[in-house]
């Protein structure tokens, strides 16, 4: 069959191609400049291993916290008619657009040793969040939770609430209906939200360095290690960046059907 559509206007094609190149070239550069010959050596250094381990632990813990707190929050936003729900939803989305550094400062003001809550944590329990691994997890959870809440809320809104009614007529309490009917129904949405949340937590930099500092072994996650290595050992920075790139692409591939393809 003959192509009947008119040619695409040059005025659109050229900026489109430049835009595409702009997004793709840095990634290609990363791959080209990676020290492939010494890649294994770099990956097996203690610092890299430490940063990678810490990153995985913190991102996974932050995701766990986000799941425990975020799924009920999403349910509340999607299914209840409590007053202030719209405002609550607005607040949930704030960390999405807030510069992460500001998030870190805000966390310090609340959980810092002199913070609104932190002072009591310190004086009552001798417990301090800033500049600890727990602090990293808190910072990552703060920044990443909106991704999970929004994904799960969307899934809940798409799920027919009448199934919960059917469960109620069968004798299920609201809690049981949530656990045995709603949760399995929105499980794919929760999984997608958790993956996004985990990816965001893994890449977290601003809030982490502000709130938790940059101590190798306790708070120095991969992005922080990349930043530090860039000044001392650029090859290591490249290798670490490559690792994060591979993780990101893997996540994108795993979510391909859900977020990039046609959404069911």
């Amino acid at each position, binding site marked *: 069959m003959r192509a009947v559509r008119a040619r695409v206007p040059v005025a659109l094609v050229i900026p489109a191609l430049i835009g595409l190149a702009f997004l793709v070239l840095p990634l290609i550069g990363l791959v080209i400049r990676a020290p492939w010959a010494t890649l294994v050596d770099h990956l097996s250094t203690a610092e890299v291993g430490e940063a990678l381990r810490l990153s995985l632990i913190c991102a996974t813990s932050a995701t766990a916290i986000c799941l425990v707190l975020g799924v009920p929050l999403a349910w509340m936003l999607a299914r209840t008619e409590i007053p202030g729900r719209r405002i609550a939803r607005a607040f949930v989305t704030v960390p999405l657009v807030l510069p992460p550094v500001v998030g870190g400062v805000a966390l310090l003001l609340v959980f810092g040793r002199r913070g609104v809550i932190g002072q009591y944590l310190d004086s009552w329990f001798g417990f301090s969040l800033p500049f600890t691994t727990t602090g990293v997890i808190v910072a990552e959870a703060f920044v990443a939770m909106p991704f999970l809440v929004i994904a799960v809320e969307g899934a809940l809104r798409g799920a*027919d609430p009448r199934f919960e*009614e*059917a*469960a109620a*007529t069968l*004798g*299920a309490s609201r809690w049981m209906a949530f656990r045995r009917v709603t949760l399995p*129904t929105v499980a794919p949405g929760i999984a997608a939200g958790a993956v996004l949340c985990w990816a965001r937590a893994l890449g977290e930099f601003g809030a982490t360095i502000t709130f938790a500092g940059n101590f190798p072994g306790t708070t120095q996650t991969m992005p922080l290690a990349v930043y530090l290595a860039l000044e001392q050992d650029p090859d290591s920075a490249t290798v670490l960046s490559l690792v994060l790139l591979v993780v990101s692409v893997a996540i994108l591939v795993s979510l391909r059907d859900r977020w990039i393809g046609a959404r069911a």
Partner: protein
Amino acid sequence: MTLQATLSVHIGSFTLAADIGVEPGTTLALLGPNGAGKSTALRALAGLRPLTGGVVELGGRTLDDPARGVFVPPEQRSVGVVFQDYLLFGHLSAVDNVAFGLRARGMRKREANTAAAEWLDRVGLAAQARHKPRQLSGGQAQRVALARALAIRPDLLLLDEPLAALDAATRIQIRAQLRKHLDEYDGATVLVTHDPLDAMVLADRLLVVENGTVVQAGAPAEIAKRPRTDYIAALVGLNLYRGTADGVTIKLNDGGVLTTAHPMEGAVFVTFPPNAVSLHKTRPDGSPRNTWLAEVAGIEQHADTVRVRLNGIPDLLADVTTAAVAELSLTPGQQVWVTVKATETNAYPI
């Protein structure tokens, strides 16, 4: 247990008001057009929509009484519901769907699964126990939904358009099976439907609901024979007129006169079935007393007969054979003579 309910529900400008009483072991059908408030009544009985006024009592226990501040939530009522689109849980197998209510009531998994399997066997789906809802046909899903509702041994069973989602062939088969299961069930059943046949076959008593109010109540046969609104008359396939009787002559409110076999006095309904109508090209000789001229307004094929809509004084529907249509060469706009024997008419007081 007996269901005794006085329902009053306001939703925006819509108001539902209905008195419902159902004895154990019997089935009441709420019959009415879409939007009449039938499903609202069902939701109120299930506890999915609180009453605005009135009271719901099941076996002497008050389930809903806004005046006294009593409201028993659905999970604490002994009410089984079969929803119109079944609402089977998609992530659970058929047997787990049926076991769900038993598990929710605290039965152990093994016992619940055994009981659920028995219920599936009873509705003829033992072989599909492990199937997920998406692997079931419409008729099978309907039976799983019924088994799920009955498995909790409810005191009240609510069926919301239980056959509406099925194709015609499946429908006949499932309707007969449903009748059997309702006969075996010893609780009270309330069925909502817009299909008069479902109501006639499945129910012992009928409540006809239009615009949120009950317009007629009674045994199916009684309602089929003596409809009191145009909606029911259309459902049961009768020509219905209101008029004033003076002996065997009835002067119709909208014009025209009909003669009946039995003398009556005062305001009456009068009906005759469409198949009692004869159509003629010329005025018949020695004609029956109900003879009038009418114009053909529409012709529709209905299974093995042809339904003819006629405008005259009064308007009417006539069912004639295809042969008669050919013989009279009926076409819209044509004038024909209509006759109806007095013995075919049925008059009863308003």
